[in-house]
């Protein structure tokens, strides 16, 4: 439990499918930082720490970004752990503020790779990918998670339409998010008729790469703007390389700490009002929810049809990355965290979940060879 550190403000840039002339990772990050500072009512001169993640910041690093943003800091971090980078940065920033290392701390994530840039990243993700997967024409993570999805369908008796419930529900949420890149309603017929990308994944199963950035600000809860509730993190846990890539990928690293997470948070799955689950692929949303103990009797199919299909559970209320867009891999996780904060601060507009008080957020990623090797989860709470 963090008593002296909380999330007090959030901000984001526009999300676009293709960066235009004059737009870059740096400009999207700048726009998100400006928005977050304004939202938190913090002057840039006050910022003492910064954490950043991006696939496309190079050759610049975190200190270069600090320079370009005019931030003189005493705490600096650059995270490279893909889809769980934002969760990692959140944990480090909370500890940094809680222990007095720095405050406020700016946490920012952004990418503007463009399609060709993303294709290069996907083929050179690590040595194993470059040497053993890319020469096969694996198509980046789509190829990897198509195999994982087939395994999950076989093990849990899932049908293609079960994943469709998630895509449709998240698209309905996205219609209420002005930042989402895809906001038009999606029907099951459209979902099932979508072009195949990597069997059994169709277009709506594959997270769309966008350009954009997100930022949040961590500080003492007293720094929250008047009339707004700070958001405290009751517990946060991480996992890295949990099984040496020797399993089936249907459990994530969350399975190694879920019990400890709930205990540390003094909470249980039924306490959760809103969930932001890292959604690079529908199968991995179900896997993470199951690892968190949020799917009764491990019945993924029933959960997909009932809890998601009938909208009984507010999951990825910003539309998720599948509809709002995924700026690179590492930046995507921060939009889920930001959405949870907005929901708990009762600032989510038309998509506000009534009386939202507790949220769970996750990160998942770094497709090392056969599936992701990093995972993280946190329990967030509105401070009254």
């Amino acid at each position, binding site marked *: 439990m963090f008593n002296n550190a909380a999330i007090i403000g959030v901000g984001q840039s526009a999300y676009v499918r293709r960066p235009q002339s004059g737009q870059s990772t740096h400009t999207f990050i700048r726009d998100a930082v400006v928005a977050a500072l304004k939202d938190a009512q913090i002057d840039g001169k006050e910022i003492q720490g910064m954490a950043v993640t991006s696939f496309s910041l190079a050759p610049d690093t975190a200190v270069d970004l600090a320079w370009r943003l005019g931030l003189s800091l005493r705490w600096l971090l650059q995270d490279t752990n893909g889809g769980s980078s934002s969760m990692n940065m959140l944990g480090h920033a909370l500890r940094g503020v809680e222990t007095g290392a720095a405050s406020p701390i700016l946490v920012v994530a952004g990418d503007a790779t463009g*399609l*060709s840039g*993303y*294709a290069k990243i*996907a083929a050179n993700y690590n*040595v*194993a990918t470059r*040497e*053993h*997967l890319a*020469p*096969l*024409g*694996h*198509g*980046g993570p*789509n*190829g*990897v998670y*198509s*195999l994982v999805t*087939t*395994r999950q369908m*076989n093990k849990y008796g899932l049908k293609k339409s079960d994943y469709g419930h998630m895509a449709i529900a998240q698209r309905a949420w996205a219609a209420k998010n002005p930042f989402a890149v895809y906001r038009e309603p999606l029907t099951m017929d459209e979902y099932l008729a979508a*072009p*195949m*990308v*990597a*069997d*059994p994944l169709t277009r709506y199963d594959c997270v769309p*790469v966008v350009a954009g950035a997100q930022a949040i600000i961590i500080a003492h809860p007293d720094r929250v703007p008047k009339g707004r509730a700070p958001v405290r993190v009751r517990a946060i846990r991480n996992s890295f390389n949990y099984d*040496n890539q*020797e399993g089936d990928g249907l459990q994530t690293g969350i399975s190694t700490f879920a019990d400890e997470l709930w205990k540390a948070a003094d909470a249980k799955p039924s306490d959760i009002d809103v969930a932001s689950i890292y959604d690079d692929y529908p199968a991995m949303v179900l896997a993470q929810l199951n690892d968190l103990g949020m799917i009764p009797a491990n019945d993924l199919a029933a959960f997909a049809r009932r809890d998601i299909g009938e909208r009984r559970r507010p999951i990825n209320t910003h539309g998720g990355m599948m509809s709002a867009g995924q700026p690179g891999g590492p930046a995507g996780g921060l939009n889920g965290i930001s959405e949870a904060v907005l929901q708990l601060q009762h600032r989510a507009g038309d998509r506000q979940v009534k009386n939202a008080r507790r949220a769970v957020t996750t990160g998942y990623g770094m497709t090392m*060879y*056969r599936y992701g090797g990093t995972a993280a989860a946190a329990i967030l709470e509105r401070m009254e």
Partner: protein
Amino acid sequence: MSAGVGIWRCASCGTGYFPERLLCPRCHGHEFTPDRVTEAVVEEVTVIRHVLGQTDWAPRRLANVRTINGPRMTVGLRDESGPGTVVELFEDGTAPFGAAKA
């Protein structure tokens, strides 16, 4: 192209790995001896039909396979082998491939 796929077997506990590791996850031994796996059973198959940024893409079949006395790995399939098929493994550069046993 060469028959079989090279793996790395821990000199201490005998466990086989692919891709290469620096330390054995089981015993943390640091010495590995080269070995080859020649057969595997296909577990799941996918067809990569569309790739970002590619306009002239020919679909490719990939599979997750379980090698005999070795690790699971992702291979390119050079035929229509499906789940349960025993395939022969071979390498093209650093990439592993498989095709049904003749």
